[in-house]
């Protein structure tokens, strides 16, 4: 089996295995395990793992101030810096916040994305030339997925709150605005799944991407797809007992866990995959979410020349001192009329 198939299939098998475990398990007497123990365990691993990883990162210092500058730097006062310059080469903390906000909320760098191809060009003596063009599809897929996922997550707060806060209700209302189906179809869920399929499709169809992709890239895609699809099935097809689900959810957050009878297995599949996602998060590439805040090429003010950045492990190094150099060349220097410290 080649590299791609091995990594693709292992990830797929892992997620299908998880589905099977939850499906079978929830039909035995282990509902308390899947409905209570696993969620608590997952929450614990998520929090501990996340905190641990952030501490591990934070323990290493940032020896040099190395922002990637993408705009005109602060220089002579009459050289105008546009807002883009200030955000892409932030010279103050204010603009740094702007840069980070754009990065985190709008995926600024991905928005910059280009596609470059070598195209046949008979006019060129070499018969081909490079073409660069703006390519926003990856940005669109990424932003659609992340925001849809966020809305889906927030929407689920209605299961954990009683009464459901007004903002959540409003959001749910907006999300289900297009009432072409009963129950009202949530756009967020659809967008999320479609975006995931796009992200998966590009990974498989683009030869370069397929070449670099690891099981760790397919696994989260399959996992979140599993979550999305099981959620959609639950809402529109299998019609799970919502009242019982909410009872379970409220029980979990109020620390009085109960497992009401009669919840369909598909719910446990959904819940189990979510638990796996949370438990997996701190040990995976999903840490890109907090990681971007730790990225020295993005999170530092480009003020190197007027604010000293101190390297905590800076140490003296050996270099040729001037006098040693002069000792070596003194005669020749005197002969060449180059001033010296000592005449002989």
């Amino acid at each position, binding site marked *: 089996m*080649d*590299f*791609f198939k091995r990594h693709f299939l292992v990830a797929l098998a892992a997620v299908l295995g998880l589905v099977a475990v939850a499906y079978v398990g929830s039909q035995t007497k282990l509902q308390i395990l899947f409905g209570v123990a696993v969620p608590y365990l997952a929450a614990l691993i998520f929090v501990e793992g996340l905190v641990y990883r952030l501490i591990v*990162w*934070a323990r*290493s210092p*940032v*020896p*040099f101030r*190395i922002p*990637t*500058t*993408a*705009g*005109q730097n602060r220089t*002579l006062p*009459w050289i105008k810096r546009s807002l883009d310059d200030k955000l892409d*080469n932030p010279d103050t903390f204010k603009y740094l916040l702007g840069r980070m906000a754009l*990065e985190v909320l709008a*995926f600024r*760098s*991905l928005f*910059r994305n*280009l596609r470059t191809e*070598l195209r046949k060009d008979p006019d060129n003596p070499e018969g*081909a*030339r*490079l073409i*660069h*063009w*703006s390519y926003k599809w*990856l940005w669109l897929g*990424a932003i659609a997925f992340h925001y849809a996922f966020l809305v889906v997550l927030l929407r689920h707060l209605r299961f954990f709150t009683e009464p459901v806060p007004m903002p959540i209700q409003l959001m749910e209302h907006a999300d289900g605005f297009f009432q072409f189906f009963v129950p009202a179809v949530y756009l967020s869920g659809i967008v999320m799944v479609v975006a995931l399929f796009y992200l998966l499709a590009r990974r498989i169809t683009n*030869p*370069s*991407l397929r*070449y*670099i992709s*690891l*099981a*760790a*890239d397919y696994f989260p895609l399959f996992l979140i797809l599993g979550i999305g699809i099981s959620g959609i099935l639950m809402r529109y097809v299998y019609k799970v007992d919502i009242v019982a689900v909410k009872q379970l959810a409220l029980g979990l957050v109020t620390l009085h866990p109960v497992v009401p009878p009669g919840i369909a297995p598909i719910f446990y599949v959904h819940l189990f995959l979510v638990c796996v996602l949370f438990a997996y998060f701190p040990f995976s*590439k999903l840490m*890109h979410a907090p990681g*971007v805040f*730790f*990225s*020295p090429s993005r999170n530092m003010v480009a003020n190197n*020349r007027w604010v*000293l950045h101190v*390297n905590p492990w*800076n140490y003296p*190094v050996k*270099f*040729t001192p001037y006098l040693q*150099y002069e000792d070596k*060349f003194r005669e*020749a220097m005197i002969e*060449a009329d*180059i001033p010296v410290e000592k005449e002989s």
Partner: protein
Amino acid sequence: MAKVPKPSELLPGISYQPPAKGWMDVKPDFRPGTYCNPAAPKWMEWIGYPYPQARSIPDNNWGLPDNWQEIVLQGMEDRLDRFRSLKVFFDICVRCGACADKCHFFLGTGDPKNMPVLRAELLRSVYRRYFKKIGRVLGEIAGARDLSEDVIKEWFFYLYQCTICRRCSLFCPYGIDMAEMTLLGRELLASIGLNIDWAMASVAQCYDKGSHIGATPQAFKDMIDFLAEENERITGITTTPSYNRKGAEVLFVTPSGDYFADPGSFTLMGYLLLFEYIGLDYTFSTYAAEGGNFGWFISHEMGKRLNSKIYAEAKRLGVKWILGGECGHMWRVCNQYMPTYYGEPVNFLEEPVSPITGTRFENAKVHKMVHISEFTADLIKNGKLNFDPQRNAHIKLTFHDSCNTARGMGIFEEPRYIINNVLPEGNFVEMPPNTIREKTFCCGSSSGINASENMELRMQGGMPRANAVRFVHEKYGVNHLGCICALDRATLPTLLEYWIPEVDVTGITEMVGNALIFPDELERTTDLRDRPLVGFEEAAEEDAEEGE
């Protein structure tokens, strides 16, 4: 030296289709022309680098120390502890591939391991294997692999096919910077004796004598005096550079490329004319004779060892501040590393003030070092320079932003402002927007790989840059590529000679010097390169005939 295939053979041969075998099973193809020779032992001995030994790449045995694996892993652990960047960049990549077609080496070679993401995976896979439980347990399926000699060879091959240009980091949604990983990976290689000769020779020479080219103090002075004489011959103006002069107001530091060879030397002639014109009280130093820093291409420590001489010399000479010449990586180091290397406020220098215009360079108040383009732009803005742009009328220019000043500093407007003042209107055009400014393409030979034995690789890596130059050459008749980088001036002429020989390379200060009107100058019929000015072509031909 390996023969470089012709452009018409090289370009159509590029394929972006990865091989059928998985990347962990593909070994690098050390084809002559695509790699740099390992460092000769004497250079490593000069600077006290470990495991000096004569090595040959085609040899199966690279003569690594017995405990090389231990050294590398210990070195990796050590660097993970000292560089947050490394930890974070190892942990958070999602392999989205946004960086892939941004790398000039990937575009030029089609080798998938030149996609920054995969180049980083070459290191990451070892990190996962030895520093992550999941990699230790699951191995290949977790993207982990053993650290074998083949892996080391692969690192050597691909970490010296990265020019630390940071174009990938610009497009990465998390700012993952291959340059940072390449630098640290090269440190690991150096720790077991693997360095490249071209960079190491330059470092050793600079460490020992004062500049990458190993010029002795008297040779350094000779070269610059010669260029001053050239100025006098062409313009009639006596420029009077001084050396190691105590009490000068300004120490001028520029890369050796500017006095070593054409066309950089024309830029140096430009500096001399400019400083003479404004009467700047400045001195060169034969000791801090190198602005560039090949040490930084080998390790952070070696970068500091070479860089330290600049402040030390400024202190010894008692200058007020430092002026830096046109150079890319020099300014990446000076901007983002130098004050931190020094570690404390540089109190023996003053906040730079232009003695001609009175402008305070507040943006350099800690660094105490001013970029020549900032300095010149300020002079022009204040009306201190009198230009005849017609003297540059034969130059139809496009401007190459050097990667380091673009993505490691952000100096875009100053050189353009100068260009627009020293060229006739309409003689400056930009390359396509996706290939300039922060998105600029590397010359393909930076970071110490401007050797000659890897010429094919250099021509491949520079292909995207040359491609954009060709575009403006054909569309607008561009015949010069301007830059503020001495390494560019050393490498781009070779690149353009290969891809698009109709275009020459010029520094910006060369054009400044060429356009400056001195009150008592000779009547000018040629530029600083002895090429006839527009309107004097016939006179030049007559001269040539008389000469015969």
